């Protein structure tokens, strides 16, 4: 049921693929299709590799070792997640503007490197790659860290006793055991790369997403746009299926009974500073530098940019994100648990389909959501008019109900991936024991699985929350009249090229995002040590 609901918009989209002929399709294949495929693939590859490196390394360091600043890094490394890709793109273009400190310094070091060449290099496909990785790696970091923390010390210590060095322990034991979690995080990163629109548009990189909009609007060929979306979905689907096949029938719980978290090892002097720098680098580039730049801009705009309306914007953003996060986690829990109870191929396929929404550009999802809502409203209206002579018009489509539903469709993957991975890590015997003692499935879920999954559920909710906070195109189209969020306000000012003024709502998005980040850290950290 949940799957059917969340897949509905996707079905609506895919239905378009088989519609009437597409007049522009031949033109697209002849001219730009290969460019789209190439750019999207290279971006995915680059961002994927980069965010694996800068996500996994600190995640392992903070969970296995002790070094100065570890406690701060633990939560601070999640912070870049609060920065939308389009904002980091604008911000770095600002950091590298002509007479700024950094490019001038670089240019002084390499005399034949003119400032504009540095700037052009930053605003390129490769530059976009680095920037996206800098704000997307937390997807891998959060999930990997939660998974590393839950690995019982028994296995890790066994590896060490057997003479495995720290690198071997990581690559042969810790990482393989966390593979479902890491793969889940990586999938999120790649899907996020595919649906980015703001950053690639600003840098002038033609990708699938920009192509979809180009085919849809100026070329006026929705069928061609849907076909491009279809190819995109196929891409992602192959990716997911491939990961599943490769994982095979392996189980990833350690089967250990006496669960005891690993003891963190102290590091030598050199190791300590190395570890701290490895953690500091992504934090500095992904968070501190952009926030500092935004703060400077906000300072320039001064009091002109700040007024009472922001209180309303914060409230709007916060309650929308909270609602969507709770509903998405609840839905994901149901899907995940159903798949665990009866892992039929059909159900597994269904759970795969329900996450595809994440890779589709928000605007396309919005239309996919809007069409069935209007249809439903028309039915409702006809019924109410006939039965009670009380026409309702378009009751739901222009309201927050449609908007929140669309968020859930789009961000189901964000909730489902960690929850599925969490279920995978839960020892199946626990469920079986509970069931064999005559406890019904739902009660088992509530009494046995939920308390064990608490950390996972909260991190899933956090990811959805932050994502909704940043979400743009969907919010723009589906929100009711006179309804603004921090993201829509930031974007409106940014597209208007009023970067200084848009810095204020952008900073607020980051601030509001901080609240759950800090909350999450307390819960995961506490769960890791306590239970």
């Amino acid at each position, binding site marked *: 049921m949940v799957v059917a609901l969340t897949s509905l918009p996707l079905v609506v989209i895919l239905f378009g693929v088989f519609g009437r002929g597409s007049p*522009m399709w031949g*033109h*697209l294949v002849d*001219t730009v299709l290969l*460019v789209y495929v190439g750019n999207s693939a290279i971006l995915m590859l680059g961002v994927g590799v980069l965010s694996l490196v800068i996500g996994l390394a600190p995640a392992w360091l903070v969970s296995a070792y002790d070094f100065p600043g570890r406690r701060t890094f633990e939560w601070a490394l999640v912070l870049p997640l609060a920065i939308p890709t389009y904002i980091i793109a604008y911000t770095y*273009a600002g950091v590298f*503007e*002509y*007479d700024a400190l950094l490019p001038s310094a670089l240019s002084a070091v390499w005399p034949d490197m003119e400032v*504009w060449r540095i700037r*052009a290099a930053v*605003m*390129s496909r490769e530059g976009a790659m680095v920037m996206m990785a800098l704000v997307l790696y937390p997807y891998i970091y959060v999930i990997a860290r939660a998974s590393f923390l839950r690995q019982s010390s028994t296995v890790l210590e066994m590896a060490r006793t057997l003479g495995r060095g720290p690198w071997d322990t990581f690559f042969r034991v810790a990482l393989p055991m966390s593979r479902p979690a890491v793969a889940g995080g990586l999938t999120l990163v790649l899907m996020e790369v595919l649906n980015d629109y703001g950053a690639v*548009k*600003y*840098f*002038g990189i033609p990708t699938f997403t*920009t192509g979809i*909009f*180009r085919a*849809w*609007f*100026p*070329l*006026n060929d929705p069928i061609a746009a849907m076909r491009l979306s279809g190819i995109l979905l196929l891409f992602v689907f192959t990716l997911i299926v491939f990961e599943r096949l490769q994982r095979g029938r392996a189980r990833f719980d350690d089967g250990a009974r006496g669960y005891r978290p690993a003891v963190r090892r102290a590091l030598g002097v050199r190791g300590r500073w190395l570890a701290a720098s490895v953690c500091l680098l992504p934090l500095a580039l992904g968070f501190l530098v952009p926030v500092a730049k935004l703060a400077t801009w906000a300072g*320039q705009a001064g009091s002109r940019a700040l007024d009472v309306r922001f209180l309303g914007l914060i*409230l*709007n953003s916060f*309650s929308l994100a*909270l*609602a969507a996060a*709770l509903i998405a986690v609840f839905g994901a829990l149901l899907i995940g648990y159903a798949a665990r109870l009866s892992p039929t191929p059909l159900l597994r396929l269904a759970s795969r389909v329900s996450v595809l929404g994440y890779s589709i550009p928000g*605007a396309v999802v*919005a*239309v996919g959501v*809007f069409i069935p809502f*209007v249809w439903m409203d028309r039915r409702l*209206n006809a019924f109410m008019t006939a039965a009670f002579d009380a026409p309702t*018009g*378009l009751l739901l489509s222009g*309201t*927050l*109900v449609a908007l*929140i539903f669309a968020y859930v469709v789009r961000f189901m993957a964000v909730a489902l991936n960690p929850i599925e991975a969490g279920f995978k890590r839960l020892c199946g015997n626990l469920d079986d024991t509970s069931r064999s003692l005559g406890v019904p499935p739902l009660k088992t879920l509530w009494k046995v699985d939920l*308390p064990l999954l608490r950390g996972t559920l909260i991190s899933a909710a956090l990811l959805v929350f932050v994502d909704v906070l940043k979400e743009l*195109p969907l919010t*723009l*189209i589906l*929100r*009711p*009249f*006179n*309804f603004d969020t921090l993201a*829509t306000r930031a974007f*409106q000012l940014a597209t*208007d*090229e*009023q970067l*200084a*003024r848009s810095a204020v709502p952008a900073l607020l998005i980051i601030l509001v995002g901080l609240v759950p980040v800090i909350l999450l850290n307390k819960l995961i950290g506490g769960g890791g040590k306590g239970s």
Partner: protein
Amino acid sequence: MKCFTRARLWMAVGVVILAACSGDGGSDGASEDAGVVNVYSHRHYDTDQELFRRFTESTGIRVNVQTASADELITRLETEGADTRADLLVTVDAGRLQRAKVRGLLRAVSSETLQTNVPDHLRDPDGFWYGLTQRGRVIVYSKDRVSPEDLSTYEDLADPKWRGKILVRSSENIYNQSLLASIIAVHGDEKAERWAEGVVQNMARTPQGSDRDQVRDVAAGVGDIAIVNTYYLGLLFNGEDERDRALADKVGVFFPNQGDRGAHMNVSGAGVTAHSPNPENALRLLEFLTDTEAQTGYAEANYEYPVKPGIEWAETLTGWGEFRADTLNLSVLGELNARAVMVFDRAGWR
């Protein structure tokens, strides 16, 4: 412990439901009144909010606004069909208004005020939409390296003498699309493609960044000339950043094709929706926006050229001088928009 989490969960659910209800109530109640006009707008400027406020002050009609990109708003209008609550569609280019007209989403309206305020070529011949403000697509040049005598027309930009010197943003940009559409209108597809290829050959670097970035790039010496929208220039030269304001001394503004058809102009404009529930109010708002008070507001605060003749321009705009503007009817740009995009694709202008 368990009770604590459960209580917290219910509390959260309660907050959410409350928030959802309050949000719905506001927007639903508003559309029932008679004294309302609902606007779908691509213009997300504070100036517009201020003008709507003044409209409400003088007429008592409340204005509800939903801002998003025009493409998305048109799709939404199309899906809502006869049930739409939107009364007025506002876009930032004529192409989208024309598309809305072709798809049957607008209705023809006419009044004496509109006829006098909006010149013929800046409105739909059948009255389906009216221009509100104008923006010119001009050439910005480095005062150090380029003499304005070397500049002449858009066509001239494809000349090999500009090899490696031109800066322009990507063909995603609607103002590039409408410029090319105006060239197709004069010269046809073939010649237009040749022109686009020539400009691509002459580019200083692959298109990236915004209109304002192109101007900064000219000042920094990446290229010598850039194709830019006057509206962004006005905002740039009057911006928060003093370095941006200093750009006004380093670059000059040139209006091309003064010897023939004139500089390419586009409008931001509006049309009353086909299924508008409050068409009278929509018409009143449209009239208000084309009249002296609003036109002065647009010109002063947003650096756009007013459509109504005789309205004073902003100081920055006056500084660039009078010029001859292309009077090609803007509905043509909308009709040629898709062809322009295809020409860009074939010419490799990314």
